[in-house]
């Protein structure tokens, strides 16, 4: 087991900077997920830990050892990839033990380790099967067992569940959590799937365009996103964003006004452009907003489109008369649209005129120019909820 430290890692190719000055410390035994859209640099960052890529600048430490220039096999890491790379000519036992025999362990030690690893991933009794006789999920367990027998200091997993079907993926998620609990080994996990990131990790590292946006526990990224990118990326469906202006009385935009004391956001001044963020579940119908202790003033809207999901219903609200249904804009960011989620028993239908309020304690304010979060709570007596401190990556 070991902690992992990335110290100002930059990876430049001829024409692109894939990773741009990323620093982080991952604690011994921690499960950290690198998440972000395609091309954000998450895989390249992990490859610098694995040794598959040498950074252009910066250093990588595993434990107390600098490993920046070491070969992958000398780093004490074990990798599990998206494409399940089992050797088709070897049975499960031989696949799991690959590399062990080379390391001069005697046959008994090899058998002991393989059986133990097979036990952990629940593959008992399957050691003499060939890969083509197994399901995708079983093959991925073999790949994980192959990593386990190495007894690595750090597990590196790059989208290991991406090729599995949806049901199996959910099952393997809990398997990996159990594995982490049993082995207590440091795990770095790369995914573009924010549900995987949210459910499994101690902390998630959100990356975009090669830079680290936020490194924090999942719920902190959800409740106190450091900037507009994290706010929009974490959470499904995405947070609503409304662009407006700071005035002497609060936030004003074409369709949404929220009154508050401008001192709540001391780093910006009247006239600055702000973006207000509110998650769909924090938009409430006035009729059912009893639980909201500090609601905003009422907003009047029309229910445009309903999406019943079973356990909840997504309601696309139109805030203004002159409906701007431009298909070129993401629904959640169209200036006159607001996405609300309600329970299935709610009395609502397409075309219905409704009054809604926002939960002030769940309103996020961002400086539009920089994207940085200014505040995550607009209740009058709040202590800030976050404020500029929320933008600090190291918690």
């Amino acid at each position: 087991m070991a902690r992992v430290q990335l110290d100002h890692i930059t990876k430049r190719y001829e024409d692109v900077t894939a990773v741009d000055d990323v620093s982080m410390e991952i604690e011994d035994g921690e499960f950290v997920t690198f998440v972000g859209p395609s091309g954000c640099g998450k895989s390249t960052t992990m490859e610098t830990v694995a040794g598959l890529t040498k950074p252009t600048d910066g250093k990588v430490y595993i434990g107390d050892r600098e490993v920046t220039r070491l070969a992958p096999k000398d780093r004490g890491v074990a990798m599990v990839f998206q494409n399940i790379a089992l050797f088709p000519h070897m049975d499960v036992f031989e696949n799991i033990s690959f590399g062990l025999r080379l390391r001069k362990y005697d046959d008994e030690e090899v058998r002991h380790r393989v059986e133990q690893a097979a036990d952990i991933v629940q593959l008992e009794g399957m050691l003499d099967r060939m890969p083509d006789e197994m399901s995708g999920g079983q093959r991925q367990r073999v790949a994980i067992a192959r990593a386990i027998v190495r007894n690595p200091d750090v597990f590196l997993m790059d989208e290991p569940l991406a090729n599995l079907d949806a049901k199996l993926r959910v099952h393997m998620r809990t398997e990996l959590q159990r594995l982490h609990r049993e082995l207590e080994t440091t795990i770095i996990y790369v995914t573009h799937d924010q549900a995987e990131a949210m459910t499994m990790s101690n902390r998630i590292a959100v990356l975009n365009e090669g830079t680290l946006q936020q490194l924090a526990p999942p719920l902190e990224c959800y409740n106190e996103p450091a900037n507009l990118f994290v706010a929009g990326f974490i959470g499904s469906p995405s947070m609503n964003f409304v662009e407006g202006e700071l005035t002497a009385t609060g936030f004003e935009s074409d369709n949404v006004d929220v009154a508050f004391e401008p001192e709540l956001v001391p780093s910006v001044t009247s006239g600055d452009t702000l973006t207000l963020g509110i998650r769909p579940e924090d938009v409430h119908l006035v009729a059912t907003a009893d639980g909201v202790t500090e609601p905003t003033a009422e907003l009047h809207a029309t229910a445009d489109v309903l999406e019943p999901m079973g356990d909840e219903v997504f309601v696309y609200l139109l805030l203004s008369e002159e409906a701007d249904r431009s298909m070129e804009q993401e629904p959640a960011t169209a200036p006159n649209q607001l996405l609300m989620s309600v329970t299935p028993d709610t009395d609502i239908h397409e075309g219905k005129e409704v009054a809604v309020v926002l939960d002030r304690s769940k309103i996020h304010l961002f400086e539009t120019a920089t994207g940085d979060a200014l505040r995550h709570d607009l209740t009058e007596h709040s202590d800030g909820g976050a404020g500029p401190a929320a933008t600090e990556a190291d918690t």
Partner: protein
Amino acid sequence: MDVAAEARRRFGRRYNVDVYEDHQELYETVDAVIITTPNKYHEEYAVDAFEQGIHVLLEKPLAHDYESASRIATAAQETDSLCMVGFNNRFANTVQVLKDRIDSGELGDITHVEANYVRRRGIPGRGSWFTRRQIAGGGALIDLGVHAVDLALYLLEYPRVTEVSGIARSEFGSREEYAYLEMWGEDAGPRGFDVDDSASAFVRCAEGRTISLEVAWATNRPSNHEFVVRGSEAAAQFDLLEGGLTIHSASTGGSPHLENTSIDVRQNDTHTAEQRAFFDRILREASGTDGSGDDRSESVEQALLVQDVIDAIYRSSDAEATVSFGE
């Protein structure tokens, strides 16, 4: 070692050495092996060798498909074995002289490589494993294309590949009336021929560098093995089989002029040079000196990229669309 008894017997008699039916028996007695099996079997023999700590010179292509190639490359990285892939054309004296000129800056920034490996009628052993997709993984593109793609990328110093567009055609191999003058191997007719016999592709790399690729076992065109390397200061032209390097430049000194400098190079046996480089590198690593200095023998990761490009050309051909290389 050979699974075919007759081949074993012939080899043993010709070189007066012990021969083996089972590769594991051979692996108990050697430090290094050269694997020249059909493409599909590369993985089994190479991976088993890595596991015994045996160094491998693997005949190109790395494997019959990208997945197998990727497993071989990963296994090589996980062990201490050296894995060199048989891109023997890099070792041609002509290519090494050209590489030296490129490195010295004489050609400026290299922008484009025209890579041609075109036979007019030269399908190898129709009916043999070469012409069966299941064993070879493809036809002319995987057989000749890997040489052309590797050499082009090698001369461009292995840039990042961003996009591939191509087509693989199968026009002649399955014809009953296939006209040829000579054939490498025996002709068992068109039966079982299910691979491409020509391919054209355009490969886009970082910073606007590009490769145009033409490969064929058979096509209606005179054969062509010409490589043209275009740079910002000069171009170079050579024939992959004949050698013969020419540098084409232009200058205004005195009076504007075009200059074509012909360079005569001693022809060498590239396979011998390649094997020598393989053994030299093993000896250097064994003696503790860093063996990674020879850029001609740095090849497993590069061979994986070549395989990725070949695979992308096949996918592009199937999809009739450009294939992007993403993160």
